[in-house]
């Protein structure tokens, strides 16, 4: 028969157990928290206020104070010229239940309320942290310039855009604050009727600010022209493509003289005809 002895709780055991206890609890809390934080990131389709930093920097720099949204709601240029009443505010602050937007951060949904591109851009100077970067919408004269805003890029679904069907619609073209610059109408012949033109809206990606007035104006059930963040809307050719005819782009890889470029390799030793017809009998 063995005698049961009580394990001795020494000061050392108490210290190590308690340290493990605290570390474990801290780790548990940290993991749960970090897991939730990761899920709390905004969708890539979120449209941010004008002059917002790139999304990752925006998220770490925005303090969620709402000063931009308040400046937007109470802007001076907020009167609808047709009704004489104030327009609703563009910028909303995400709630915990707002799908796809990090809680407490400002965003807008162009189809609901687009950005009206105020001359004085009141939302940007209101930002205390620099998450809305005033310098990015300031022109060379040191003035705020709404043409430098960049919230996204209008994109046309040419299948559902009725102008591409041949119907006469230029609502987006006329709604655009940079009319005939950001959206141009491209006239092409309508071969179906033979005597009409397609008035196809074409977005100039170098001019479009992504304000969304076109998306708001679009008469189709679900907008055929819509704003996407540039990160989503644009491709990237990569550094390995060089426009040899573009002096600036060529300089990216350094000026190289023709005679220093070696194009000769082992395959060059064969003649093209030999290479293709090798071993073929014509008899």
């Amino acid at each position, binding site marked *: 028969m063995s005698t049961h002895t009580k394990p001795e709780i020494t000061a050392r055991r108490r210290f190590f157990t308690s340290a493990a206890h*605290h570390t474990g*609890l*801290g780790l548990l*809390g*940290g993991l749960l*928290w*970090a897991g*939730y*934080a*990761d899920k*709390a990131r905004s969708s890539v389709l979120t449209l941010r206020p004008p002059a917002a930093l790139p999304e*990752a*920097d925006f*998220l*770490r*720099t925005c*303090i*969620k*104070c*709402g*000063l931009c*949204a*308040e400046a937007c*709601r*109470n802007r001076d240029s907020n009167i609808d010229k047709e009704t004489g009443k104030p327009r609703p505010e563009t910028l*909303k*602050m995400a*709630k*915990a*239940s*707002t799908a796809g937007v*990090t*809680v*407490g951060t400002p965003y807008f949904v162009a189809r609901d309320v687009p950005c009206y591109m105020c001359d004085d851009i009141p939302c940007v100077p*209101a*930002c*205390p*942290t*620099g998450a809305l970067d005033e310098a990015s919408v300031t022109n060379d004269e040191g003035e705020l310039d709404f043409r430098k805003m960049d919230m996204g890029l209008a994109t046309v679904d040419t299948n559902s855009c009725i102008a591409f069907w041949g119907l006469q619609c230029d609502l987006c073209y006329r709604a655009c604050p940079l009319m005939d610059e950001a959206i141009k109408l491209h006239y092409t012949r309508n071969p179906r009727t033979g005597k009409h033109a397609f008035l196809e809206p074409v977005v100039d990606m170098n001019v479009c600010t992504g304000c969304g007035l076109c998306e708001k104006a679009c008469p189709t059930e679900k907008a055929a022209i819509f704003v996407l963040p540039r990160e989503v809307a644009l491709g990237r050719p990569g550094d390995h493509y060089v426009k040899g005819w573009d002096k600036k782009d060529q300089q990216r890889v350094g000026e190289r003289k023709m005679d220093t470029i070696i194009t000769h390799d082992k395959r060059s030793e064969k003649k093209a005809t030999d290479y293709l017809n090798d071993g073929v009998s014509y008899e």
Partner: protein
Amino acid sequence: MSNMKYLILRRITQIGLLVLYFGAHAYGWKMLSGTISSSSVLGKIPLSDPFAVLQMLAAGASLGLDVIVGAIIIALFYGIIGGRAFCSWVCPVNMVTDAAAWVRRKLLIDKIERKVWVTRNARYYMIAIALVVSAVAGFAAFEIVSPITIFNRGVIFGFGAGAGLLVAIFLLDLFVLKNAWCGHLCPLGGVHSLLGKYALLSVKHNSDNCTLCMKCKDVCPEVQVLNMIGKRSERVVQPECTNCGRCIDVCDDDALGFDILALGNKK
């Protein structure tokens, strides 16, 4: 009414601030715009939450001057004058947890429930975890779960599902642990405790007048700070005291009072 003086003053401040914030958004008032995370007084003086700024720096943000100045102003105000007064005089969640504590007293829950023990230092661990998670995630980690800013923004911009978080905190305080949120877990409370450690405003006890009725200990949300009651005449020195003044309100014996500008004789 005399035993509710500071309680009423606190509610006026808390609700008054919410009204100013609400009006700034809804009607364009200029007095106090923004939210509790970062505000602007008269469109000029910035005020910012030092803990939010700390998390953002941990996340690697390069911040504008306004928000840094705002955080310094707040840190200096509470550090020199207010102590941990933010928690009981400004923070809107205080109204939720005070309500839970009140229901608790009425239902005598303390006398019935099984005790759950959580260290009151948990808030300091929460600060550390918040900063580490901020650094890892790349954004201010507490700010996406903070019931304080969710309540504050809810009043100004409309409540969403975040209101559920406030109900959760109410239930936590009511049924799980007395003063669970404000007295144990909230890292912002921890930051304000540390900030206000050497502030001038504090509660002072006069044990000569004390009749040991213990009403103060009944209502105090940080009851450990009142360890001198009936024993020693001294100031509350533990930083977790929120300067809410509830103990002063309920004391019928004039044994407790605010002690301001007691420079040098901090005992």
